[in-house]
């Protein structure tokens, strides 16, 4: 059992990246419009986040420095500040969306309007971030979030034409009434979701929270090689069930309430209940991840003490930032903005945040000052360099594609 908990951090990090509120709808939407023809993007994204999460996790284990600490050291205060603002854009907007997402999940179960749940959810979330121990937090939401495996079970139960699904996977191009621009927009969106900057902020800071040292590099790699592929599989299974149920019926997914329908069809009420539990845990887990990451980024940029491993009194500014972020998030959500739409705007910020986050990691993972002999091997460097080029291309393409497709229409 201990071993299972040892990978909770990796699972929670991956859940916050692959199946947070924005991705639940995006994966379902992609399945309902493109089937599995975008599956290859998820695979590429999983490998990318594995490469860089492993590097940032190794840096955290060997040198005790979390990712945002490095960003400013390597890029200097000016570019570092630009990345702080850009990545805060992504992290904070996603944080707002997650709180709304938890409220949406409750709305589906209770059919009471989401806005009414927002203050309750935010209060509960903040109490968790303030008092609940980091290990308990990651185990509870990381492992319960695995309830989303019910989508894979539903896919198997629907007994689809597997050959047809495989044909979709192996034909990476838009279907009949889809354009290459919207196909590329969702390719960028899925890749961006897989490699969202706050995943490495949270994963590396989580490593410091768990007092990783050089002897924990093995555990760190277990987290990486187990957690992220699992995240990828969850997002693919969501796309697959909607491809099977919605694509032929001409239904395009627009809201969270449509996402669990295929599970209800396949597994009935039990399946639906498990799916809703999965929604709740995944979005709540992602809310913790992004909420803490807001604090981690600010504190590590300015050099404040941070983290839950010290008493709140010893990381006063860190906790004040998290509290402020929660209050502002509630205020924004009370304007009844659609939480899912909020994540679409964060794509714009991730265009800048992606390269400025991953370049310092790649550089520092090769610096003996930080890593001693644990510097990157040739394989990590080769993959890291290739992916850095992909990241730059994606970040350049993100905003134009968003404008061209008016947010993916």
């Amino acid at each position, binding site marked *: 059992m201990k071993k299972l908990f040892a990978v909770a951090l990796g699972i929670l990090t991956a859940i916050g990246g692959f199946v947070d509120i924005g991705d639940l709808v995006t994966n379902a939407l992609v399945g309902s419009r493109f089937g599995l023809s975008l599956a290859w993007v998820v695979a590429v994204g999983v490998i990318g986040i594995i490469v860089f999460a492993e590097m940032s996790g190794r840096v955290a284990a060997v040198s005790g420095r979390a990712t945002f600490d490095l960003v400013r050291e390597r890029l200097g205060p000016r570019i570092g500040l630009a990345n702080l603002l850009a990545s805060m854009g992504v992290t904070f907007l996603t944080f707002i969306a997650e709180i709304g997402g938890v409220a949406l999940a409750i709305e589906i179960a209770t*059919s009471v309007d989401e806005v009414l749940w927002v203050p309750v959810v935010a209060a509960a979330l903040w109490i968790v971030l303030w008092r609940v121990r980091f290990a308990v937090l990651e185990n509870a939401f990381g492992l319960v979030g695995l309830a989303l495996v019910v989508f894979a079970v539903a896919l198997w139960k629907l007994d689809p034409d597997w050959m047809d699904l495989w044909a979709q996977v192996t034909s990476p191009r838009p279907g009949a009434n889809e354009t290459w621009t919207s196909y590329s927009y969702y390719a960028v969106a899925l890749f961006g979701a897989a490699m969202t900057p706050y995943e490495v902020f949270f994963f590396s800071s989580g490593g410091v929270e768990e007092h990783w040292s050089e002897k924990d590099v093995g555990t760190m790699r277990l987290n990486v090689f187990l957690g992220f592929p699992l995240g990828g599989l969850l997002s693919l299974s969501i796309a697959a069930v909607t491809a099977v149920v919605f694509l032929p019926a001409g*239904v395009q997914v627009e*809201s969270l*309430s*449509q996402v*669990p329908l295929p599970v209800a069809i396949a597994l009935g009420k039990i399946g*639906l209940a498990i799916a809703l539990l999965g929604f709740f845990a995944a979005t709540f887990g992602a809310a913790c991840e992004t909420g803490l990451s807001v604090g981690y980024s600010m504190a590590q940029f300015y050099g404040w003490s941070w983290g839950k491993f010290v008493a709140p009194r010893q990381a006063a500014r860190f906790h004040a930032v998290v509290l402020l972020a929660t209050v502002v998030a509630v205020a924004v959500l009370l304007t009844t903005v659609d939480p899912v739409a909020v994540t679409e705007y964060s794509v714009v910020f991730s265009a800048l945040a992606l390269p400025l986050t991953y370049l310092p990691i790649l550089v520092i993972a090769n610096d003996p000052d930080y890593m001693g002999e644990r510097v990157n091997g040739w394989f990590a460097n080769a993959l890291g360099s290739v992916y850095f080029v992909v990241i730059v291309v994606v970040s350049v393409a993100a905003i134009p594609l968003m404008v061209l497709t008016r947010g993916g229409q």
Partner: protein
Amino acid sequence: MLTVSGCATPEGDPSLYRDEAVSTLSAAESSVVTVRIVLTTRLRDRTFGRAADDAVTTAETSLSSTAGTFEGLQPPRGADAVRQQATQLLSDAEDTVAAARIAVRRDDRAAMRQALVAVAGVAARLDRAPEILP
């Protein structure tokens, strides 16, 4: 001169207006089919009443906003027939979806069965819309 120099917008160009009608009806079909699936699933007792209510209500809201946007467009000269048929289809869709929402919220199985027939009918008409639109 005005029409000639008018820029190509659905409100100016009849064929663009018809394309807009087709894409609106396709979005409407997506909402209506969602309601059909929810009704079927609820009637087979494979989903909770509240979840069904939430899904149908969300689809109803999305349908009415889709319809509202289209109805707000100024039809170019000569496109009135297209507009008349499209808005008729849209209002039928809204009526049947509203009936479905009422039935689901009351958990009235008979009304749900009736609504399912109506919803399936409208869905079929929406599916054929691109061909039957003038």
